[in-house]
C-alpha cells in the first residue's frame, strides 16, 4: 500500500507522468527523457522519501509518547517537543550553521527537542500521571515560549537571506527537498526507530502506569529518559528537514490502534508504515490538489488532524 501510494505520488504533479513512463524512468533512468528523469530523480523521489521518513518518525514518536505519558493526546507537536526542535533549528539556521556544517541544524533541533523532553520528564516525576489538561497546558506554555524565542532569533538574524530561509522552513513544508535532506534525516530516524521498536515490551508495561512498570522489570526513570531522548533525536531529525508538521503523531497511532489494537509490538511498526503512508498522501494532496494556491504539507496534516484531536479531547472524560 505504501509502495503503491509512493508510486502514484511519483506520477502526479505539475508535470503529470504516465505510470509506464514513471516506472521506466525509475528502473532505467538512462533511457528516459531528461525532463522525466529529472522530475523523478531530483524532485519527486527525494521529496517522497523525506515524506516517508518524517511520517514514520512522527507517528512512531507519537505512539511512544502516548505510552510514556499514558494519554492518547500526547504527540510531539502537542507536547511542544517539535516546538523545542524548531527553536533549535531556527537558532541553527539564523546563526548560519546550515551553511557551514551540514549536521548543525539537525543537532541544534535535537538539542531543542531534548530540552523539552527533559522538562516533560521532570513534570512526569512530580505529577506521576498526567491528565489531558496538564499535557495540553504544558504543551501550550512550551509552544508559546518557543514562538517567542523564534521571533527573537529571527529579529536578530544577521541578514535577510537567513530570515527568509528560516521562515520558509518554519512553514512545515516538503517543497524542494533534495537527496541531501534524505541523507540528513535517514540516519538518525532509522537508528532511532530501530531502538524504539526494540522497546515494545517496556512500552507495554509503561502504558499500565509507573507502579505496574516498576514491578514488571522496567527501570522506570531510566527507561523513560532514554525513550524520550531517542524520541527527541528522531523528532529533531524530522523537524530539521521538514519544519513543524503537527498531528501526524496523533492521527496515525489512533487509527492504527483501532485497526490492530494497542500492543506495542504491532502498534509501533504499523504506525511507522502508516505514518509514512499518511505523510506521502498528505504531501501529494498538498502539492497537487489546490492548483496555483501554495498549500504546505503541514496544513493538510493539520486539516485532517485538528478535527480528530478535538474529537478525542471531547470524548475523553475531563482530567
Amino acid at each position, binding site marked *: 500500500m505504501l509502495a503503491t501510494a509512493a508510486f502514484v505520488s511519483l506520477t502526479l504533479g505539475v508535470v503529470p507522468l504516465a505510470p509506464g513512463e514513471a516506472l521506466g524512468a525509475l528502473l532505467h533512468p538512462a533511457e528516459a527523457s531528461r525532463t522525466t528523469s529529472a522530475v523523478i530523480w531530483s524532485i519527486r523521489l527525494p521529496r517522497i522519501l523525506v515524506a516517508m521518513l518524517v511520517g514514520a518518525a512522527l507517528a512512531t514518536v507519537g505512539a511512544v509518547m*502516548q*505510552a510514556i505519558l*499514558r494519554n*492518547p493526546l500526547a504527540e510531539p507537536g502537542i507536547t511542544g517537543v517539535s516546538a523545542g526542535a524548531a527553536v533549535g533549528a531556527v537558532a541553527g539556521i539564523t546563526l548560519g550553521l546550515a551553511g557551514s556544517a551540514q549536521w548543525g541544524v539537525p543537532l541544534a533541533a535535537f538539542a531543542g527537542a531534548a530540552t523539552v523532553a527533559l522538562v516533560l520528564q521532570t513534570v512526569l516525576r512530580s505529577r*506521576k*500521571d498526567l491528565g489531558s489538561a496538564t499535557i495540553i497546558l504544558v504543551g501550550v506554555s512550551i509552544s508559546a515560549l518557543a514562538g517567542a524565542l523564534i521571533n527573537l532569533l529571527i529579529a536578530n538574524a544577521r541578514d535577510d537571506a537567513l530570515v527568509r530561509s528560516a521562515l520558509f522552513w518554519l512553514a512545515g513544508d516538503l517543497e524542494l527537498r533534495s537527496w541531501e535532506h534524505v541523507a540528513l534525516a535517514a540516519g538518525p530516524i532509522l537508528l532511532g526507530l530501530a531502538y524504539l521498536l526494540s522497546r515494545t*515490551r517496556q512500552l*507495554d*508495561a509503561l*502504558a*499500565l*502506569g*509507573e*507502579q*505496574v512498570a*516498576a*514491578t*514488571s*522489570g*522496567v*527501570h*522506570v526513570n531510566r527507561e523513560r529518559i532514554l525513550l524520550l531522548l531517542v524520541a527527541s533525536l528522531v523528532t529533531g531529525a524530522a523537524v530539521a528537514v521538514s519544519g513543524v508538521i503537527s498531528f501526524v503523531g496523533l492521527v496515525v497511532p489512533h487509527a492504527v*490502534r*483501532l485497526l490492530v*489494537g*494497542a*500492543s506495542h509490538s504491532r502498534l509501533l511498526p504499523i504506525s511507522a508504515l502508516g505514518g509514512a503512508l499518511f505523510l506521502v498522501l498528505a504531501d501529494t494532496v498538498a502539492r497537487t490538489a489546490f492548483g496555483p494556491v501554495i498549500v504546505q504539507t503541514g496544513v493538510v496534516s493539520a486539516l485532517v488532524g485538528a478535527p480528530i484531536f478535538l474529537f478525542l479531547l471531547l470524548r475523553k472524560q475531563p482530567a
Partner: protein
Amino acid sequence: MMAETAACPFLAATLTLDGFGAYRAGRALGSPLDLRLMPGTVLGVVGPNGVGKSSLLGALAQAGVRSYGRARFGAQDLARVPARARAGIVSMLAQDLHAPEELRVRELVAVGAHASGNQDPLSEAERALSDVGIAELAHQRFGSLSGGQMQLTQIARVLAQRTPVVILDEPTSALDLFHQRVVEQTMRRLGNDGRIVIAALHDLSLALNACTQILLLDRAGDAHSGKPADVLRPDLVHAAYGVRTTIHTTPRGRRFLATE
C-alpha cells in the same frame, strides 16, 4: 510431583523487614516496621484512610515510593535487586487500573507473564484469566470492561507473573460479592502454594477470613501485627478507626466483623 514443581517454580524464602517504612512527601510514615513473613503468609494491611497502607505497599514493591530501612527476600535486599530480577520476586496490583482502551485483555495479562520471562505468555495469560473466572473476556478491549472486570484483569496480570511475593493494593475495591469471594479464595490459594501475599484491605471481615496475619496501622503511627482475631480486637479497632465493633461467627464457621 511434577505438577507441583510446575505450579511452584520459585524458591520459597522469608520476607524480612528491618526498620522498614515509606516516605510520603519527604516525611517518614509511621514507625519503622520489623516483620518476618514466612512462605505461605497472607498478610492483610488494614487501617484508616491516610495512614500509609498504599505507600507501604509501593515502598515494598520499590514502585515509585521511597523507603527507609531494609526489606529482604531471602538474602536479597529488594532495594538493590535490579528491576528485571525484582520482577521475578515481587508482582503488584496497583490502585491505578488504567490501560490503553484498545488493549486486549489477554495482552494486558501477558505483560505479567512477560515480566517473569514466561516462554508462552499468551497461554499463561489465559490460564490466569480462568483462575479469576473471566476467561471469556480474553479477547475483549480493555476499554469495554466494567470497573470490576478491569480489576480482575489486573489481578490476572499479577497471577500470570507467578512471583513468590504478591502485593495487592485493595484487590476487592471494585468487585461484587461473587468476585470478592473469588479474590479471597485466590489469596488463600496463593498462600497455600507457599507464596507471600501482602494485601491492603478496607473490608475487615475479608481480612479476618482471608489472611493468616494482620498488620493494623493507626493514625498515631503505631503498628500492631499478629493473628487476625488478636489484632482485629474491638479495642484495637476502636483505637485505630474510632468505631465500636464486634466479631461474630456464622454457623458454618465464617467470621465477620460488625459495627455497633
